[in-house]
């Protein structure tokens, strides 16, 4: 019955993270929790097809998963596990309503994003345990083998266990720092997904959409955190341009994008999320910069002066300085920006957008030979085929004009 297939899928979207989070809190064993959650989802398909969708799907899934977990724990023999089993066995009563099951996803998010885990493991673990992606899907998304991804996940769970990473929402003295850490993981996840979506492989799982979904859940769980809302805004306002980013396997630069294809609902939602007063954190500032682009009907309507101004509100990393220089070049001309960009040579020598920006400024100043040399460097450094193609076209256009 397709209806129940849909129900399982829907329930998966909403319930997987809650189910796993609750199971880990209940048994303290990440592997067991995930295995049994997966089995409960698998069991739901035939059961719900036969007798209909239960009133409280999450409670149903939790009960099934716990029973599976108990079976497995019984089969283990060590005394310590038997003791744990004895205490776990006491709460056999299944919750009748989904609302009766406490939402423990926050504990799970903070643990997955703990700073003692390697960054790639934080991203993978969050996608697996909260997002419900399979290791194979995550492996494809990050262009690694399934074996590598499995190992990464196993090692992360082992570290949580052996190093004693607590399963909890951080106390007040760690709150700000750990929230920042979670946001950094979600932002990285989005960016990696976004970059991959313009790459050669279009069949990969949409990690950016997953990052947006997880950030949305986080905003629901910690509504008081302005930077979490700002991050959601930033992701939406960036993602809104995605339909226009790639055409015929070629990355389309902002100025050449078909703005009619931008997702205006996402722009509106992002703008609404930013309707708070300053002070703004780094995500809020970046979101406002994205909004400046999104509300310009034509490229020449972009308020580059405002963008350059906004960039001064973020702690100046070399990449931020590069972006500010680009905005200044648009507002006040390439000759203003060139010295700023050249000063970043030492920090950004390996970054393809540094060379690409330099090439653009040289070209606008009529210094074609230098522009061509910088483009050659950028082509060599570009991370995806779509970007390489775009840069090659620019170089060809430049050589045509200069008659070389």
């Amino acid at each position, binding site marked *: 019955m397709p209806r129940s297939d849909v129900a399982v899928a829907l329930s998966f979207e909403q319930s997987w993270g809650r189910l796993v989070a609750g199971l880990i809190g209940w048994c303290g064993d990440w592997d067991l929790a995930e295995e049994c959650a997966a089995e409960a989802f698998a069991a739901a398909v035939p059961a719900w097809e036969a007798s209909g969708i239960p009133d409280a799907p999450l409670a149903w899934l939790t009960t099934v998963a716990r029973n599976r977990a108990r079976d497995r724990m019984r089969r283990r023999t060590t005394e310590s596990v038997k003791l744990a089993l004895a205490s776990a066995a006491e709460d056999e009563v299944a919750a009748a309503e989904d609302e009766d099951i406490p939402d423990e996803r926050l504990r799970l998010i903070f643990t997955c994003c*703990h*700073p*003692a*885990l*390697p*960054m790639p*493991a934080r991203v993978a673990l969050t996608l697996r345990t909260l997002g419900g992606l399979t290791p194979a899907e995550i492996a494809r998304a990050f262009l690694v083998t399934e074996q590598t991804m499995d190992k990464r996940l196993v*090692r992360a769970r*082992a*570290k949580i266990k*052996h*190093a*004693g*990473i*607590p399963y909890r929402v*951080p106390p007040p003295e*760690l709150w700000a*720092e750990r929230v920042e850490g979670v946001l950094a993981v979600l932002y990285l996840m989005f960016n990696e997904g976004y970059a991959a979506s313009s790459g050669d492989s279009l069949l990969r799982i949409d990690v950016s959409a997953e990052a947006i979904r997880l950030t949305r859940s986080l905003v629901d769980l910690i509504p008081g955190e302005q930077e979490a809302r700002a991050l959601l805004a930033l992701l939406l306002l960036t993602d809104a341009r995605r339909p226009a980013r790639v055409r015929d396997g070629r990355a389309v630069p902002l100025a050449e994008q078909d703005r009619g294809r931008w997702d205006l609902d996402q722009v509106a939602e992002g703008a609404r999320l930013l309707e708070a007063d300053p002070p703004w954190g780094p995500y809020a500032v970046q979101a406002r910069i994205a909004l400046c682009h999104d509300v310009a009907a034509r490229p020449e309507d972009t308020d580059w002066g405002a963008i350059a101004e906004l960039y001064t509100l973020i702690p100046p990393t070399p990449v931020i300085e590069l972006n500010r220089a680009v905005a200044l070049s648009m507002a006040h001309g390439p000759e203003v920006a060139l010295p700023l960009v050249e000063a970043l040579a030492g920090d950004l020598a390996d970054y393809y957008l540094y060379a690409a920006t330099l090439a653009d400024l040289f070209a606008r100043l009529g210094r074609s030979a230098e522009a061509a040399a910088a483009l050659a460097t950028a082509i060599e450094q570009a991370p995806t085929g779509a970007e390489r193609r775009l840069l090659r076209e620019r170089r060809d256009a430049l050589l045509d004009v200069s008659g070389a």
Partner: protein
Amino acid sequence: MKYLMLHTVDESTLPETEDGGVGEELTAWVDEMSARGVLLDGARLRPIADATTVRAPSGSPLVTDGPFAETKEQVAGYDVIDCPDLDSAVAVAASHPTTGLGAIEVRAFDDGMPDPEVPDQVAEGKRRYLMLVCADMRRAMAREAEADTSEPAAGDESDDGEDEIDRWIVDAGARRIYGWPLDLPDRAVTVRRVDGKVVTTDGPFAETKEQIAGYDLLECTDLDDALAVASSHPVAGGGVIELRPLWA
């Protein structure tokens, strides 16, 4: 005198078992050295995949995954031994099975270290971590080399440092079992077995910018608890601290 034996091995060549595959030999060594009153404390550490490092360049601690330095061989365990002199400490180390797997760095503790008192059982609901305190010691070594030939300079800042350490020890309370600073790394001796023969070399097991300056054995509820202790250590501002769970 008390010496630290720091066991270092290339983890990638080891079976991941509690005894590193040298069970019987290890038990015999521990039994013998305990009976002789030589062995005072010791433990195997969880692999570096379970290590966590704290750096605090500007007061806000930076927590990262992994050990304090990327080296070919990694610290895998430690023993505290009491021996009359360095030669006998090296002999004790040379008889340890680790010399067949990797190397053992032997380094004296600073003077005045009391016998460590470590309960056999970990307290209920707690875990143990070895907290390696690491710092760039090149300046200290240069100063010490200088001091051998001249009078110590007046107004030495080390008293301040000791006050800070004392306050840290009080704050750590029961979360710290014991700890002691080590002699400078250039006075260490590293023991290996090459073709069945014991070879000793001068200096620590690896030449890294930061070197192990001392350690504390912690007993904490979880990693965050241990990180709180580590981040408040006075060296965290200018050095690096590595937390390694003990093999439970």
